[in-house]
């Protein structure tokens, strides 16, 4: 085991490859023909709602589920048929799954002892230091707080220097403040030791904060994969547009897709979308605009920004949330659009019933195929 680790490290990069992987439970297809490469050293997030197949994918990499079809490999080594205990992969479980009868020290040393590694003491002490639990080595898991248990689970997996570290909703059980802190902590540790992290979560903020690459999963397939900013700014599907942050999706007709700006007709008003963000070029399309990208101005005022404009809105709801004010603006065609204004103090604020015009830059919107459900992915479970 340890020997083959060494060979792998000195050889080809240990990228994680999933090739045409499927998993069926009876008639239910949990993962559908998934192909994916995670480069060595990446912090990769599999993001999706519960039941989308992300945890099943992770368990297939860990060897806790056998794929119905396809192969899993690390570098050149095919690990599809290997038992979990023979894989150079370790998992941080959602429930932590710490051994309640062992001390923190023994929990962390567990993997080393099983592999018959020498100098367990030194390595375990080093790991206790890395996860900032030096004084807790002699305690039992039940005597630790949730955040500390989380760090033990992390240390217990990391100490084995796995080719790939799998994290299954690792911060789900922590409260919001601690979760934020641990997100930064995880990112720090990952950068420090450079092991590939594959992180499964339904929390889009968690994924965006930590991962270099996010794959958004839905119904067993990857909807879109890319850097967090790319996914957020240029989603390809309504599911991604709604699941990552919030989007206004307005039904439009494509008028002209020949230039570098695609012109669409939005209920009688013409607006433009950058060609690079336009994922349909004829017929109907969903025009997507993020609420924070829209500027609202008083009807017919001279403050109205250049670029795309939609006029004739009426403010129907105002909620003040501190850093921003969130408006709902009813448009002439009856749809309510979300508009978030930063509370910079520089811009006018509105109240319910005010008549407003909306404006945004063409680079700040996107155009999606109209065949999709505009509400896909909109209902999120924010509670972890």
């Amino acid at each position, binding site marked *: *085991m340890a020997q083959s680790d060494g060979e792998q490290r000195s050889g080809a990069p240990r990228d994680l490859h999933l090739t045409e992987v499927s998993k069926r439970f009876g008639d239910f297809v949990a993962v559908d023909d998934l192909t994916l490469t995670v480069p060595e050293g990446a912090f990769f997030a599999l993001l999706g709602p519960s039941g989308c197949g992300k945890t099943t994918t992770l368990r297939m990499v*860990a*060897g*806790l589920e056998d794929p119905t079809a396809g192969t899993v490999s690390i570098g050149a080594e095919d690990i599809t048929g290997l*038992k*979990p*205990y*023979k894989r150079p*992969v*370790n*998992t941080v*479980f959602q*429930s932590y*799954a*710490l*051994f*309640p*009868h062992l001390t923190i020290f023994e929990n962390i040393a*567990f*993997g080393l002892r*099983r*592999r018959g590694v020498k100098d367990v003491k030194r390595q375990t002490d080093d790991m206790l230091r890395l996860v900032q639990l030096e004084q807790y080595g002699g305690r*039992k898991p*039940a005597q630790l707080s949730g955040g500390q248990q989380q760090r033990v689970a992390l240390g*217990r*997996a990391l100490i*084995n220097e796995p080719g790939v570290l799998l994290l299954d909703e690792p911060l789900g059980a922590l409260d919001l403040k601690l979760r934020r802190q641990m997100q930064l902590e995880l990112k720090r540790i990952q950068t420090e030791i450079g092991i590939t992290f594959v992180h499964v979560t339904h929390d889009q903020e968690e994924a965006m904060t930590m991962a270099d690459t996010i794959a958004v999963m839905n119904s067993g397939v990857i909807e879109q994969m890319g850097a967090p900013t790319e996914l957020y700014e240029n989603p390809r599907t309504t599911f991604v547009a709604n699941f990552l942050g919030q989007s206004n999706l307005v039904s439009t007709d494509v008028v002209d897709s020949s230039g570098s700006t695609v012109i669409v007709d939005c209920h009688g008003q013409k607006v433009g979308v950058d060609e690079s963000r336009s994922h349909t070029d004829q017929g109907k399309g969903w025009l997507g605009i993020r609420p924070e990208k829209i500027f609202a101005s008083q009807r017919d005022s001279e403050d109205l920004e250049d670029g795309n404009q939609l006029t004739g809105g009426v403010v129907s709801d105002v909620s003040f949330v501190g850093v921003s004010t969130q408006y709902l603006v009813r448009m002439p065609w009856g749809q309510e659009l979300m508009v978030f204004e930063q509370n910079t103090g520089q811009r006018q604020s509105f109240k319910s019933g005010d008549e407003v015009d909306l404006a945004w830059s063409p680079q700040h919107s996107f155009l999606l195929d109209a065949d999709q459900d505009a509400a896909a992915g909109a209902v999120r479970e924010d509670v972890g």
Partner: protein
Amino acid sequence: MNPSATEAVNVTDKPGQRRGKGWLLLVPGMLWLLMFFLFPTVQLFFTSLYDPSGSFEQGYAMTWHFQNYADAIKETSDLFVRSFLYAGITTLVCLLLAYPLAYAIAFKSGRWKNVMLVLVIAPFFTSFLLRTLSWQAILADQGPVTGFLRALAILPDDGRLLATPIAVVAGLIYNFLPFMTLPLYASLDKVDHRLIEAAGDLYSSPFTGFRKVTLPLSMPGLVSGTLLTFIPASGDYINAELLGTPREYMLGNRIQSAFLVEQNYPLAATLSLSLMLLVVVMVILYIRRSGTEELV
């Protein structure tokens, strides 16, 4: 809330009062123990020190005759050894049989779990005595088991099962198996399957995972199961009485006959207390050693 109600709440909230009420809850149990455990035990202790020259008809004189203990143990040392030997073998075999059974019920039985648990306790629906008597028929010289073993030449043609130590120990094992199985099941059922997955993830083969995770976590059940088997088995006399001969008699048989047949009360009391004391000492040593108090 009216003022008097508030006052009433305040009164009951006084910590001292609360503690007083808490102790009250212990009273029925304490009374029970006092009447049915402490009082008879003290009585037994006095009885054990009566002068052995007395008799049931003439009455006994209280002479603080501690010599009774030395005499009794000297006379019955082979019975003590045999009792603990049989009880020990019973406990060991019960453990070996019950562990896989409890493991299968806890982890592998799926929707049959409840049915299997009912089957484990089903024997309790019939009397202990009746079930042991039926083993006489099963192990009889002309019975099916003996016949089968003779046919396979495992037993010689005139070999017997009934009236041998094997029959007595088999009866004990049969009778105490549920007492081992149920606590083991209760412990194993609580073992989180994800811990076993985690052990696998951390380079444990299924066997190592069992040894390092499942087995230690089932220790509370293992300890209580072995105690629930060993303690009553060491004092049992029905199995030796019904399935054995005087050659297989255990301490329980001697105590029973001293009380009911010879009516030698000092001897019976001495033996009872000696057995109790020895078992208590063994249990304390055993629990100390297995360190169950540290288990979660």
